[in-house]
C-alpha cells in the first residue's frame, strides 16, 4: 500500500501527488516512471516521476485527468492509499554536457521535464525551456521553470501569455537563424512530439522524445508498449521510454495509442456515473 502524503491541483484537471514509496524514491532518476494501480479493480498505468525525495521517502507524480483511472486517482485525498506502485521503471534520461539543450514541453510534461532540466544544468548545459499551453490559465510553475533554465519561452494558442503560437515555432526560428542547439528533448502529447520531431529533423539536431504508449506490466512482459524505431520493434518500458524522435514511426504509434478509444469512453461514463 502506498499512502498519498499530499495533493495539489496545479491547474484544472492537472494534479500533483506526493506518494510515500521510499524504495522508489531512493532509486529515481530523471526520465523514469512508475506504474500504479489505484485499487483492486484498477488497471496498471504509467506516470512519470516528476520529483522525488529520498530522505522523506516520497515520489511525486503530476497527472492529467483524462479517463477512468486518472479520474479515480483524482478522487483520492491525502492519507488515502494507492494499492500498487512500482518503479522506477525505464531508462533514465541520457545526461551529459551536450552544450545547449532545448527542452520542449506541453501538458503534464511541464512538470515532468523539471528533473531533466535540473540534471542538464547540473551537467553544465545551457538550458532553454519552451513550454506551450492552450491559454494562460493552463500554465503552471513559471517561476520554477525560469529558475531551472537559462532561458524560458512560453507559447499559448491564444496569446494570453508569452507568445501566440505553438512550441515548435520559436525553436524553428532559432534553428533557421543558425543558432546552435545541440540537443532537443520534447515531451508532451504525441502530436506535439511528432511536430517537434518534424521541426528539428531538417536541421539534423538530435531530438529525444519520451514515448507514452499503452502499457500493462512495464517490465518487458506484454509487448503492448512496442514502438517502431528505425524499422525495429522496441519496448518502451525496458528499451525506452526515450527514443530518437527522427527514427519513430509516428503514424503507427499514434494509431496504437487509440486502440481502446471506444472502451475508454464507455468506461469513463460508468466511472463518472456508476448507475449508468
Amino acid at each position, binding site marked *: 500500500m502506498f499512502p498519498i502524503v499530499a495533493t495539489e491541483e496545479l491547474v484544472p484537471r492537472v494534479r500533483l501527488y506526493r506518494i510515500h514509496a521510499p*524504495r522508489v524514491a531512493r532509486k529515481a532518476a530523471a526520465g523514469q516512471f512508475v506504474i500504479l494501480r489505484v485499487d483492486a479493480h484498477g488497471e496498471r498505468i504509467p506516470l512519470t516521476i516528476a520529483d522525488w525525495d529520498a530522505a522523506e521517502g516520497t515520489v511525486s507524480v503530476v497527472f492529467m485527468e483524462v479517463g477512468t483511472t486518472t479520474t479515480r486517482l483524482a478522487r483520492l485525498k491525502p492519507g488515502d492509499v494507492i494499492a*500498487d506502485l*512500482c*518503479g522506477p521503471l525505464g531508462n533514465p534520461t541520457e545526461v551529459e554536457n551536450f552544450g545547449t539543450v532545448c527542452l520542449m514541453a506541453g501538458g503534464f510534461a511541464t512538470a515532468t521535464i523539471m528533473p531533466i532540466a535540473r540534471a542538464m544544468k547540473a551537467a553544465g548545459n545551457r538550458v532553454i525551456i519552451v513550454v506551450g499551453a492552450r491559454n494562460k490559465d493552463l500554465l503552471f510553475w513559471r517561476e520554477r521553470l525560469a529558475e531551472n533554465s537559462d532561458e524560458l519561452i512560453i507559447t499559448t494558442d491564444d496569446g494570453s501569455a508569452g507568445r501566440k503560437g505553438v512550441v515548435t515555432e520559436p525553436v524553428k526560428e532559432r534553428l533557421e537563424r543558425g543558432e546552435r542547439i545541440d540537443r532537443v528533448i520534447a515531451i508532451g502529447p504525441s502530436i506535439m512530439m511528432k511536430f517537434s520531431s518534424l521541426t528539428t529533423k531538417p536541421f539534423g539536431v538530435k531530438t529525444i522524445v519520451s514515448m507514452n504508449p499503452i502499457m*500493462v*506490466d512495464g517490465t518487458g512482459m506484454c509487448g503492448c508498449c512496442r514502438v517502431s524505431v528505425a524499422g525495429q520493434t522496441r519496448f518502451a518500458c525496458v528499451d525506452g521510454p526515450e527514443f530518437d524522435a527522427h527514427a519513430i514511426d509516428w503514424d503507427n504509434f499514434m*494509431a*496504437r495509442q487509440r486502440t481502446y478509444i471506444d*472502451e475508454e469512453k464507455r468506461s469513463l461514463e460508468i466511472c463518472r456515473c456508476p448507475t449508468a
Partner: protein
Amino acid sequence: MSQESGGKAKAKINLNRVSMPKQPADTRRQTFGEVALGYSAEDAAREAARCIECKARNCVAGCPVAIDIPEFIAAVKSGDLAGASRVIKRTNALPGICGRVCPQESQCEAVCTLAKKKAPVAIGRLERYVADWELGHHPAPEASASPPTGRKVAVVGSGPAGLTCAAELARLGHAVTIFESLHVAGGVLMYGIPEFRLPKSIVQAEINYVKSLGVIIELDAVIGKTLTIDELLADGFNAVFVGTGAGLPLFLNIENENACGVYSANEFLSRVNLMKAYRFPEVDTPLKVGKEVAVIGGGNVAMDAARCAVRLGASVTVVYRRGREEMPARIEEIENAEEEGVAFLFLTNPIKFDINDQKWVSGMVCQKMVLGEPDASGRRRPVPVESSEFTLAIDMAIVALGTRPNPLIARSTPDLAFASRGTVVADEATGLTRKKAVWAGGDIVTGSATVISAMGAGKTAARDIDRYLASL
C-alpha cells in the same frame, strides 16, 4: 504390505483409466469456469485401485520433484486423504497446480509401469483430487518446521521456481523473502495460464500455503530497478535465487506487425487473466476481441490464447507452420481447442499483415509450407511452397511464438553469465550461477519449459543453497 498387495494386483491389471469429467464443449465456450471438473470420490478410489504399487516405482523418477507416488496412492486407496496430502506436500508445495497443468503424459505417467500397456495410472488427476480435497476440508497440514537458522535468502520472482525454492528453504528454517515485480504472486500461473485450466483461487490457496511456512512475499518490487541483486546481497541476504522466468514475447519481424490489433499472446493473456479484462467494464482494464482472430503458433500458449478468444466470442483460426503431429502443445489441449470450435491451418506461415485506413489489421498474408529435412531440434523443417501466398481476412492476430528472459536482471547484474538467448548460465546439478551466492532456475535458465521443471530447478537450488548456508 505393498509387496503383498502388489502381487495380488498383478493378477488382474485393470487397463481402464477412469476418465476426467469435463464440462460439455458448448457450455465451455461461454464461460471461464474450469473445464476439467475433477474426480469424484468414487472415480478417485477406482483409479487409485489401478496402481499395482510395483516394485520398480518408475513413476517417482519421472516426477521432477520426486513425489512418493505409490505411497500417496496407497493412502488414497485406504481412504486416508489427509495422509495422502501429507505425503505429497512433503515434496510438492503446489499439488493443485501440478495436478492440473503438469504434462503428466511426458513425465510421471510416461514411465508408469502400466504405460507399457498404454494405460498409465492417472497420477496427475489423483494428485489434483487429493489437493482439492485438502483445500475443501482442511487447512494446510502442519509442516514440520526446522528451528530458525538465522540465515536470510532472497528469492526473485514468484513463479513456480521461486515459490518452490522459497518453500523448501523455509522448511529448513531459513528466513525467505520473495520479491515479485507484479501486483500478484504466481508468475505465469496467474498471468498466463487461463482460469478455465487453472483457477486463480487454487493458485492463491497454494501460495497461501507457502506463506504459512513463513515465506514473506514483497509485491511491486522490480529487481534490477527497485533493488538490484547486489543490493540484496549487501542488505543482509546471504544468498539469492533468481526465478524471473522468460516473459519477453518474440515477434515475427514481418511487415505491419505493430499494427493495431496485433497482440502478443502475453499481452492478450495478461489482460484476460491478470487484469481480468473479460469482466470489463466492471474492471478498468479494457480488451478488444476481433470477430476473426488468427493465433500464430502451435504450443500451449497458442492453445490458451485461442481458447480465451473463443470464450470472448471470436471465431478463431490457429495458424501453424508445421503439421498437427509436430505441434508442441499437449494433445489434451489441442483436443479441447478443437472441441470448442477452434479451426487449424497447418503448414502455413504468415509473411505480412495488411492494414486498413484506421491502421488496424485487416488481413494476414500467408504462405503454404511443406516439411523438409529434420533441423537441429530433430523436427522436420518447414519449407515455403513457391507462389502459394493467400490472404486470411482477420481483424485481430495473436502472436504466440515463444518468449525469452526480460533484460532487467541482465542489465543490472553484469557479472552474471548469460547464454546467447538471454538465459542465465547455471549449473544443472546445483542451480549455482557464475556469481557468488547467486542461484537461478526455471525458465530464466532453460527458456520456456514447464511448471514442474521450474519447480524441480527451484528445489535443486534450495538444496544447494542450504548446503552453502550451513558452510557460512
